């Protein structure tokens, strides 16, 4: 089996093994998660060292109606696979002491397998299968192990994504059919389908793709599933949701929608830019209004992803690579934040901003890590968020999409960045530094133990590492983004 296939087959085998291994499931999950991470590093190594263009391709023979098992990988996809494997391992450690059955561990491994498949597929049929297959394990993760309103959130999550992606499916079929009409060949291979002329149907087809990917990003107004799903999922589930699954939408736009239909992409640019700007500001404003810490972080993801989308649209080197790096950054930073809210919730069974206070004294380690991740999230220089946001913003400012002669989208983005501090810092202050109120449950919160601190040390070190040496990360990502440059 080739290395690329192993990247998704190993976690899938892990899922089966976990389901069968009863009480020892967590050890099985750990073993397979480590194996998957090692494999993803092996795959990533030549990219970081070498030129990083298309690296490895598995091409199957086309079977019925042109579907072929084919995978491909470059810097962007392998970075996302590595992020998936890394966060999957983080989730294993984070849930280590949870009282859950083998199904829990199996779901996480299955999710990691499907996500890796999404990032590796070169055949659109395969891509779609993996895309939808991510829903089933996450549906059970939210529905079985989530908090109070989990049932509703699980169904909502599934239905929203499914609703979006069925229109994406229609669009993909339309492209395949148009390609067959033009060339007489049935194929679902992404590279062969690029630039297919769809005639007058093109705007509709593009809209279908946009809805499918937009639900996942999520683009306002398709975002309403996100706060529920992210808030109700168990902590590790939120980490995977925010850390990796939100990136699927952007990845789909970058890898599928834009290269498949360059014409409509060009003409829809102002609309997309406006939507992304709205995302950045609306998400931040909603986050400011939240009283639940987890919900606040969920809304902040909407803002961050809108910002990433702006960077992708900028069409120049800085903006695009900045956005790609910001996708990875957001996975690490928000993953850490969700984990810490999970730790807090485990101890106090509360998540409200006003339920705490004074935690800096009661749980200094937690306060340190939370502060660290918060500052990374709002873009403090020296940490990873700064690099991504700075590059995005400078890219947008230089991009040719202007509005009335002004760099309108850069202004929107800058407002979004400012607002990030306006929701994140007060929340941090309310939970950790404000005096304990009469209803405070801070007394229940003991500090982090060695396992929890270990996970967070790793995550924070990564934030610092990317923040201090961004160039090696950027050079791994840049070659795979050439297609987005204009």
């Amino acid at each position: 089996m080739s290395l690329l296939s192993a990247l998704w087959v190993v976690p899938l085998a892990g899922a089966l093994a976990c389901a069968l291994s009863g009480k020892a499931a967590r050890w099985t999950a750990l073993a397979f998660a480590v194996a998957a991470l090692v494999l993803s590093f092996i795959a990533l190594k030549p990219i970081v060292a070498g030129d990083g263009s298309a690296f490895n391709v598995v091409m199957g023979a086309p079977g019925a109606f042109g579907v072929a098992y084919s995978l491909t990988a470059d810097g962007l996809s392998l970075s996302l696979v590595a992020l998936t494997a890394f966060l999957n391992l983080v989730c294993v450690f984070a849930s280590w002491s949870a009282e859950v059955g083998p199904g829990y561990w199996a779901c996480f491994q299955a999710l990691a397998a499907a996500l890796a498949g999404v990032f590796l597929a070169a055949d659109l049929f395969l891509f779609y299968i993996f895309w939808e297959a991510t829903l089933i394990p996450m549906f059970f993760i939210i529905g079985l192990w989530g908090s109070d309103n989990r049932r509703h959130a699980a169904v909502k999550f599934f239905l929203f994504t499914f609703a979006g992606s069925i229109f994406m499916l229609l669009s993909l079929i339309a492209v395949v059919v148009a390609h067959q009409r033009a060339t007489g060949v049935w194929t679902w291979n992404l590279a062969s389908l690029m630039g297919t002329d769809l005639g007058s149907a093109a705007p509709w087809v593009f809209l279908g793709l946009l809805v499918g990917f937009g639900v996942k990003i999520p683009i306002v107004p398709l975002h309403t599933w996100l706060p529920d799903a992210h808030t109700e999922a168990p902590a590790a589930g939120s980490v995977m949701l925010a850390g990796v699954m939100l990136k699927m939408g952007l990845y789909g736009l970058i890898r599928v929608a834009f290269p498949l239909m360059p014409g409509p992409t060009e003409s829809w640019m102002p609309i997309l830019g406006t939507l992304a700007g709205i995302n950045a500001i609306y998400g931040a404003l909603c986050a400011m209004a939240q009283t639940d810490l987890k919900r606040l972080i969920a809304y902040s993801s909407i803002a961050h992803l809108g910002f990433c989308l702006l960077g992708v649209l900028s069409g120049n080197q800085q903006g695009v690579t900045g956005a790609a790096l910001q996708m990875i950054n957001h996975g690490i930073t928000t993953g850490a934040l969700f984990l810490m809210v999970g730790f807090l919730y485990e101890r106090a069974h509360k998540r409200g901003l006003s339920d705490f206070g004074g935690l800096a004294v009661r749980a200094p380690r937690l306060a340190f890590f939370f502060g660290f991740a918060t500052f990374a999230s709002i873009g403090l220089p020296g940490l990873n968020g700064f690099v991504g946001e700075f590059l995005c913003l400078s890219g947008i400012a230089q991009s040719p999409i202007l509005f009335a002669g002004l760099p309108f989208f850069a202004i929107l983005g800058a407002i979004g960045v400012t607002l990030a501090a306006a929701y994140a810092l007060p929340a941090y202050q309310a939970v950790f530094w404000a005096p304990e109120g009469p209803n405070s449950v801070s007394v229940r919160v003991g500090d982090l133990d060695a396992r929890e601190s270990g996970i967070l040390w790793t995550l924070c070190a990564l934030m610092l590492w990317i923040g201090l040496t961004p160039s090696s990360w950027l050079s791994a990502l840049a070659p795979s983004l050439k297609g987005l440059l204009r």
Partner: protein
Amino acid sequence: MNPLASSLAPQAALAAGVLGALGLGLAARPKALWGRLLGALALLAALFALRLAPPDLLPPLISVDMKSLGWQLVIYAGALPLAVCSAGDDVETALLLGATLGMGLLCVAGNLLMLFVGLEFMSLPAYLLVARAGEGDRSRRLEAAVKYFFAGALAGALFLLGMALYYAQTGLLGPGASALGPMGRAGVSLMAVAALFKIGAVPLHWWLPDVYEASAPEVSAFLSTSMKAAATLFLVRVIQIAPDPMFAAVLPWLGAVTALIGALLALRQERLQRLLAYSSLSHAGLLILGVGAWARLGADPQALASLLFYLGAYALMSNGAFLFLAASGVKTRAELRGYAARSAGPAAAFAVLLFALGGVPPTGGFVAKLLILWQALRAGLGVPAALAAVASIVSLAYYLGLVRDMYFESPEGEPAAAPAPADAARARLIMLICALGALALGAAPLIYGELSGGLWK
């Protein structure tokens, strides 16, 4: 062997099975096992006999081609679960095999007269099956059977009238009419309406939920799979004999609307068998859309193969889902709450079947839906395809709702509602096979490339 005889070998096997079942009644105390064994063996023999059929035989009455063999495969295989799960007495076995024989005749019918014979032959035993099979409240089954009979009789009468009009104008009972006048078109429309009646297209669906709900679950499984396949084939044959442009114009919309309405009606159902009945209605809509796309593409073999794949996948999913009801004894959504905690295996199989029915990858239900949408887009039917997509979102809402009931909810008050029926083991086994099959079909485009590639050509 004589080509005509060998092409009718499956039907002969079924006919022998009917006679054997009636002979079984002569035995003093026939065991249920014999009846089931006989039914299953006759169906398997018919399936095996498909291999004997010569590929192309087109005499006036009987028409056998590759595709008619495909239909027979789906229909005979779809009847197997009922044969295994039936009460196994002589009459039920004879009725089942008789209905299947009628469908087999429909499959090879080369003209309208044979089509009518097949239609009546498959319908009459089905009415009796609805009335007779199953335990418990007999009066409701009788009521449903009468309703089913009237709907079927109406369809048969419409078909006869249409056939008469068609004959009056063209002097033909088979294909070959050049241009149809108003009378001939009216005749063709009536015949198509009869077929849509049997499929259960909106607004001709009023009989369907009641019949499916009142019948024994395994009979509903048969009605929703083999019978539905035969009814779809019936529509296809009518169009093949009298191709008229109105089919291509009307059927896609009718299919999309049926899919949507069926899904919307299923959304509010509390009783599971009724919910599955409406879900079957929604799936019928997709089938009609597929037939419409096929007609629009000029009787394209790819489109027909897509329809067949859909029916094959649906045979697995629907048989499995109805047999879950037979195996578990669960009747309402309230009883389903917390079911996964009580019996994990059947719950997991049912969940797989529900995801397959909802068209979620990586199941066969997804591939089936993909194929129909694909053919619709090939035929330039963007809006009906989008409507069908909306219908599939709506239908996923209730399939997910059932999964949610099973896995995420805890039982209200008294747990463990109905104890599982006495001989649930067989139903459980068949359900498991169906679930595995539905899952395996999901990889069909990748794994069975050569196999289904052959079907394409």
